[in-house]
């Protein structure tokens, strides 16, 4: 970053240039993501507070132990698959953004398609997880699982699980829609005419945020 060259200090705040050397839209996307991070953070902290205030809590390895088509007795397997799907889709998104930097339209298209497929795959997995839990009697206000120490559990567990994964899933869904729009715009040559693929970069920030939130949700609900 050449903020300070050998002889001339760049005057960032004297007008005429962007002080952070970024496009307005990109900076605003970052700040929107900060607000969204606070929202997710507040939900997760509420979850943490409730767990810390509880004498016991359901064991996620007992609650989440099924894999589609393979039955039960497989804790952590399905959620690992979901995590890898989202990480890989984040990687393809980075590759799409990089392709955009180098005006590689085909690269952008191919990687966006892979990212969209990954997004749909994750949503499908989450839908299966929700349906499976629902069939076991879990829902907002209904918790069929007992605590790890054998005592009766309240509905906090399922309420938090469905609310937070639902809110996250909603973000994945909107991210997929945004990516589809990006793909259509790329195919139509909109960015080629503009001369830059910065819009893809902004969509990329949103998609990485979605992956980032999943890193936290996955660890805090399924692992610890």
């Amino acid at each position: 970053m050449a903020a300070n060259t050998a002889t001339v200090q760049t005057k960032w705040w004297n007008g005429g240039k962007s002080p952070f050397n970024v496009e307005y839209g990109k900076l605003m996307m970052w700040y929107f993501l900060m607000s969204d991070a606070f929202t997710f953070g507040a939900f997760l902290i509420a979850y943490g507070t409730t767990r810390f205030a509880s004498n016991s809590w359901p064991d996620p390895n007992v609650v989440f132990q099924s894999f589609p088509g393979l039955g039960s007795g497989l804790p952590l397997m399905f959620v690992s698959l979901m995590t890898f799907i989202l990480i890989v889709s984040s990687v393809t998104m980075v590759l799409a953004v990089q392709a955009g930097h180098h005006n590689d339209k085909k690269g952008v298209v191919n990687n966006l398609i892979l990212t969209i497929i990954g997004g749909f795959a994750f949503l499908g997995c989450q839908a299966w997880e929700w349906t499976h839990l629902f069939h076991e009697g879990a829902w907002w206000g209904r918790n069929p699982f007992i605590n790890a120490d054998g005592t009766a559990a309240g509905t906090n567990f399922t309420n938090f699980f469905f609310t937070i994964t639902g809110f996250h899933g909603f973000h994945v869904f909107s991210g997929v829609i945004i990516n589809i729009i990006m793909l259509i715009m790329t195919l139509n040559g909109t960015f080629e005419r503009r001369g830059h693929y910065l819009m893809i970069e902004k969509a990329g920030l949103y998609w990485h945020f979605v992956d980032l939130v999943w890193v936290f949700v996955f660890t805090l609900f399924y692992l610890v």
Partner: protein
Amino acid sequence: MEHTHTPEYHLHAATPETYAAAKKEVKKVTIYLTVFTIIELILGYMLFLNHTTWGSGLVLFVKGVILIFMIVKAFYIVAYFMHLKHELKNMIMTIVVPLTLFIWFIIAFLADGNSYKNLNNSYDSYKLERSKTKVSAPAHGGSHGSEVKHPEQKAH
């Protein structure tokens, strides 16, 4: 090709060499993220296998390690995938400084939650007694007759 608007910020040079270098960095970070996730999963699985035999200190330590890996993964995603590491220092600070206050938020509320638990256990004896009463698994076999059961669950 017409540029309808010349950006007033400076984009990086885009050459085939920078493209190759960029892809290489992505590959490196992807491997890190994959390895860290696998380690987290292994630790999580070990917790599952041993949480009854390990002391609470060891369980907490392993959970702490998992949380550290979570933070490290978050750092790599934000710094490299979201490119924040390569932005100007002042912009990085507008993102990072509020998040340090967030750490205070987390600690305060978890401490509060812990305090709620202790106060409840001290002063609400009915709630404490109920929270110590063991139950057998629900009649409809809530977890579809699953192979993994709580150690305390009574056999069907």
